[in-house]
C-alpha cells in the first residue's frame, strides 16, 4: 500500500507524457505571428511596397528584411546551440517512459515543422504568384519575397533543424546513425532557400513572372519533393512507438 501511494505521488509529480500547453502554444505562435504578417502585407504591400526606389519602401520593407535576417540567425543559433549543448550523453540508458515522453516532445517539434511548411511552401509561396501577376517587379526584394523567401522559409528551416537536433540528441531511436529520410525531410526544404539564388539570378535576365510554371522555377519543385521524406520519418517513429507500446496494447 505504501509503495502504491509513493507510486501515485510520483505519477502526480512527474511531467505529463504530452505537454499539451507547449503543443498549443507552438501552434498558436505560428498562427498569430503569420496573421500579423498577413495584416502587415495587406496594409504596407500596397501603400509602401510598389516602388523599391521610394523612401517608404526602405522604411517598411527593407528594414523588415534586415530585422528578420538578424532574428533568424539568432534564433537558429540559439535553438540549435541550446539543443546541442544540453544533449543527453547517456541517451541509451533512459527509461521506456522517459523515451515515450521524449517521443511526444519530438512530435510537438514535428507538428510545428509540418505547420511551418504549410505556411511557407503553400500559403506564402502561392501568394507570391498572385502578387507577381498583379505588380511588375522592380527589385528582387519584393514585399512578397521578403515574407516568403526570407521569413517563412527560414522559419520552417529553423523548426525542421530543431526537430532533427532534438531527435538526434535525445532519442535512442536516432542514436545509431543519421536517418536518411529525416535528413532529406530537413535538408530538401532547406535547399529551397539557396535555390532562391538561382531564381533571382534568372529573374535579373528575364521578366518571367508572367509564367509561374516557367522552368526557372523547377528547382523549387525538385526540393519540394523532399517533403515526402516525412513518410520515412513517420515509419521510423511508428516502429519505435510500437516497440514501446506493443506489449501493453496486445
Amino acid at each position, binding site marked *: 500500500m505504501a509503495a502504491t501511494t509513493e507510486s501515485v505521488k510520483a*505519477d502526480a509529480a512527474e511531467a505529463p*507524457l*504530452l505537454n499539451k500547453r507547449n503543443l498549443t502554444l507552438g501552434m498558436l505562435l505560428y498562427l498569430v505571428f503569420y496573421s500579423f504578417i*498577413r495584416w502587415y*502585407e495587406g496594409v504596407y504591400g500596397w501603400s509602401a511596397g510598389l516602388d523599391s526606389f521610394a523612401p517608404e519602401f526602405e522604411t517598411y520593407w527593407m528594414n523588415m528584411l534586415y530585422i528578420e535576417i538578424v532574428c533568424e540567425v539568432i534564433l537558429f543559433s540559439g535553438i540549435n546551440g541550446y539543443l546541442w549543448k544540453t544533449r543527453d550523453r547517456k541517451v541509451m540508458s533512459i*527509461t*521506456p*517512459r522517459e523515451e*515515450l515522453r521524449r517521443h*511526444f516532445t519530438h*512530435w*510537438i517539434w*514535428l*507538428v510545428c*515543422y*509540418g*505547420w511551418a*511548411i*504549410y505556411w511557407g511552401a*503553400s*500559403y506564402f509561396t*502561392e501568394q507570391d*504568384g*498572385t*502578387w507577381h*501577376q*498583379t505588380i*511588375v517587379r522592380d527589385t528582387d526584394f519584393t514585399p512578397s519575397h521578403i515574407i516568403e523567401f526570407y521569413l517563412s522559409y527560414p522559419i520552417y528551416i529553423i523548426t525542421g533543424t530543431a526537430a532533427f537536433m532534438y531527435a538526434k540528441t535525445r532519442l535512442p531511436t536516432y542514436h545509431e*546513425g*543519421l*536517418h*536518411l*529520410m529525416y*535528413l*532529406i525531410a530537413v535538408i530538401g*526544404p532547406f535547399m*529551397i532557400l539557396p535555390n532562391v539564388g538561382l531564381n533571382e539570378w534568372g529573374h535579373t535576365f528575364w*521578366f518571367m*513572372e*508572367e*509564367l*509561374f*510554371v516557367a522552368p526557372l522555377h523547377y528547382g523549387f*519543385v525538385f526540393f519540394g*519533393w*523532399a*517533403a*515526402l521524406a*516525412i*513518410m*520515412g520519418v*513517420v*515509419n521510423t517513429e*511508428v516502429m519505435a*512507438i510500437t516497440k*514501446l*507500446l506493443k*506489449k*501493453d*496494447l496486445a
Partner: protein
Amino acid sequence: MSASQSAVRSRAEAVQVSRTFDWMILFTLFTAVLGGYHIHYMLTGGDWDFWTDWKDRRLWVTVAPIVSITFPAAVQACLWWRYRLPIGATISVVALMIGEWINRYMNFWGWTYFPVNICFPSNLLPGAIVLDVILMLGNSMTLTAVVGGLAYGLLFYPGNWPVIAPLHVPVEYNGMMMTLADLQGYHYVRTGTPEYIRMVEKGTLRTFGKDVAPVSAFFSGFVSIIIYFLWHFFGRWFAKTDFIADDAS
C-alpha cells in the same frame, strides 16, 4: 517484467497514447504533404489552375492530371503498402485543395482582389477517390497505375465540367468571339495576360472542336499511367527507414 520497465501504466493509457500519436502523425503528414504537393503543383501546372481563362479544352485538361497524380501515387505507396490505409490519394488531394482554397480566398481575393470565380482551383477529387478505390479493391499497384491512372486523366474534365461550363459559353465582345472565361481575363489584366504568354488552345488540334477535350483527356490519362508508376517508386523510396553511418557517434 516490472511496471517500471513499461512505457505506460495501463492498457487504457497505451490506447490513449496510441490515438494521440495518430492525430499528431496525421496532422504532420497532412501539412508536410500539403506544402510539398502545393509547391510542386503550383510551379508545374499552376497557371492553368489559377485562372479561368487558362482553363481551356486542351492544355489544362492535359497538364493538370499529369502533374497532379504524382503525390497521390507516392503517398499511396506508403499508406497502403505499409498500413493498409486506402486514403493516400484522397488525403493528398484534399490537402492540396484546402491549401489552394485558403490561398485563393485569402490572397488572390484578399490581397490582390481577383474575384474567386476567376481564380478558383481545379477539382481533382473524383480522380483521387477512384485511385484509392481501385487500389483498395484490386490491391495491385499495376492495376491502379493502368486503370486508375487512365481514369484519373479521363475524369478530370468531367469532374470540372459543372464548374467551368458556364464560363465556356461564347460571347461577342468588341467584334471578337471569345469565351466568358476569356472575357474575365480581358477585364482582370495580369502579367500573364498577353497571348504570347497564355498557353491555351495552341496548335491545330483545337480545330477538331468538340473532340479536343476527350482526346486531351485520353492522352493525359496515358501519361498519368507512366507518372503513377514512377511516383509509386518515389513514394517507396521516400518511405524508407534506413540509417547511414554516423562517424561522430
